[in-house]
């Protein structure tokens, strides 16, 4: 492949939507590629038995995670809370691939020191907060985060992800409503990927579009193609801007698709083959590559360079993480409270382990 002439690139740059520049487009590409490649590395490690617990994939949903997180202003102190399929969001916020690998492999060096699994980790400095498994619970928590922004008069914005399935939880409802009543600077991204585990959308909710739920809370609703990273960025960015301007909550439905099973063990036998094939043709990275090259926003060389950077970084990360030790057993007892109990507690183990 020969590089496009620079002139074509310049011409096209004028047409980049959503106020983005070329460098940012390449960043978006980089993060989507990084997300996918990191998960592929993880899948390898999983097959080798090196991932301790389950493995969750976001194949086909990278645009949704990356585009939405990219709309936040990290330097302004914006924060988000991811779900299991938001590896891309974490990477955008500055999470290191090596830390993700450490998490999955339960290393002593992992952000949670081996206590929590997969992408269940957070980093206040980098602006993301770790989820727990109980679906919906992060809505109230992010309401509290953004309430704090509001109370302090800080112009910061929060973003929280929720799956089509998780929207059925009571916690989602309570958090959403509280945020709406107080017009908190919160963006709620509803990821409609068609499934919650094996459950299809119509067995999860009687509405055909998740965006309709916005009306019940008196918040603005938006809907976008979750596999179009620029559309995702654009819709999220507008919601973020509104939130920052004090205009309250937006619920954004991103329409996408879960191309893998719920977790790596799930063979998706309940998924129609043609449905899968259709969404494979709608791959968000392929689409973005076409868009980038067709519009002349990036040339093949730049994309290849990005790919190479991803591969190099991941080689190094896998290399680094793999050799690291598991946590010291007795470290398991530390940090339940800020201070250890005042005295030798009779309820601690009677025995010391080797």
């Amino acid at each position, binding site marked *: 492949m020969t590089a496009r002439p620079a002139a074509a690139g310049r011409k096209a740059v004028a047409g980049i939507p959503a106020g983005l520049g070329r460098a940012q487009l390449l960043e978006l590409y980089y993060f989507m590629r990084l997300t996918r490649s990191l998960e592929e590395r993880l899948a390898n490690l999983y097959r080798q038995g090196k991932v*301790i*617990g389950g493995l969750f994939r976001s194949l086909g949903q990278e645009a949704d995670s990356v585009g939405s997180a990219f709309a936040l202003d990290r330097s302004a102190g914006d924060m988000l809370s991811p779900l299991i399929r938001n590896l891309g969001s974490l990477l955008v916020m500055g999470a290191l691939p090596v830390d993700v690998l450490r998490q999955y492999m*339960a*290393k*002593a060096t992992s952000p*949670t020191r*081996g*206590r*929590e*699994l997969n992408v*269940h980790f957070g980093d206040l400095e980098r602006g993301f907060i770790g989820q*727990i*498994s*109980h*679906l*919906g619970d992060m809505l109230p928590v992010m309401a509290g985060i953004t309430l704090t922004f509001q109370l302090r008069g800080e112009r910061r914005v929060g973003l929280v992800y929720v799956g089509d*399935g*998780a929207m*059925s*939880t*009571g*916690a989602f409802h309570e958090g959403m409503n509280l945020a709406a009543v107080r017009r908190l600077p919160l963006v709620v991204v509803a990821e409609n990927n068609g499934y*919650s*585990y*094996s*459950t299809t959308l119509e*067995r*999860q*909710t009687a509405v055909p579009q998740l965006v309709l739920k916005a009306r019940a809370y008196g918040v603005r609703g938006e809907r976008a193609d979750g596999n179009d990273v620029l559309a995702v960025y654009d819709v999220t960015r507008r919601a973020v801007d509104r939130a920052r301007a004090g205009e309250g909550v937006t619920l954004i439905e991103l329409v996408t698709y879960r191309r893998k099973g719920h977790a790596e063990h799930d063979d998706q036998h*309940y998924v129609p083959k043609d449905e899968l094939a259709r969404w494979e043709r709608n791959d968000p990275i392929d689409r973005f590559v076409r868009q980038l090259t067709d519009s002349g926003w990036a040339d093949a060389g730049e994309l290849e360079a990005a790919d190479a950077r991803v591969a190099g970084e991941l080689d190094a990360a896998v290399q680094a993480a793999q050799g690291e030790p*598991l*946590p*010291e*057993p*007795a*470290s*398991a*007892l530390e940090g*339940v409270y800020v201070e250890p109990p005042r005295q030798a507690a009779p*309820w*601690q*183990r*009677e*025995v010391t*382990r080797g």
Partner: protein
Amino acid sequence: MAEVTYLEALRQGLREEMRRDERVFILGEDVGRYGGAFKVTEGFFEEFGEARVIDTPISEAAIVGAAAGAAHLGMRPVAEMQFIDFISCAYDMLTNYVATARYRANLACPLVVRGPCGGYVRGGPFHSQNPEAAFLHTPGLKIVCPATARDAKGLIKAAIRDDDPVLYFEHKYLYRRIKEQLPEDGDLVTPIGRARLALEGTDLSIITYSAMVWKALEAAQVLEKEDGLHAEVLDLRTLLPMDDAAILETVKKTNRVMIVHEDTRTGGVAGEIAARINESAFEWLDAPVLRVTAADTPLPYAPTLEDFVLPQTADIVSVARKLAAY
């Protein structure tokens, strides 16, 4: 007789009850077409149809509440929690609505809530919990915790037939690791409220339940071989109502008791058992009632950490020695 796993035994029990009694139906997340996250209800959708194997939204409170409503009208709902950790989302519904229904309103509420509990599977803090202590405190509920394939089957059948609400905590570590010969016909029902003497012994008693029964038996072997000690192992099977008579009997026999559970120590079930033994058999005790439990932390994910926090066979052995030497 055929050899079946703990999981298959549970499935058999469920299936037999659904065949026997058309009021029995199942509801939960992914229990239908998918057959449940652990495939406990595999094949049920095909055999019993959509109306009796109901896929619900992700709504534990609604699942339990709906089961209660159906139970009031004479149905026999069996609600699955995908992991028992999520039962916490139905805590209000279970403790306030379900458990009190008979007492406050004379409403029958014969439902079963079941799901996979327990650790040793690298599930981390939210896929490994043992919630029995959270509910032991609630009059009106019954709690069963099968350790064997036979009881997995016998207790699900008894739970479904019980006229009061029953929480059935099945241990996911045992699902496919435990196998047992079970009769192919005949109605295998384990009475709720009765403990089982898993091993007879004379020197000390290990009172336990669920997956810990197997560790206790392992420990008993070690003690026998290495120390010549004969440990008795009592498998409680039901925690609420507790089989006080069986507990009393073993205490009177060995005069040295330890309680083993997988759950964290403080506020765990062992406290209640220790208090009861104290109240009803103090004069029979030659040594303090000791506890082997998990440490008081959320359950961590890394194998090194999980193994350290959870009780192990070696812990039981070492506390048993201490007890015997007291």
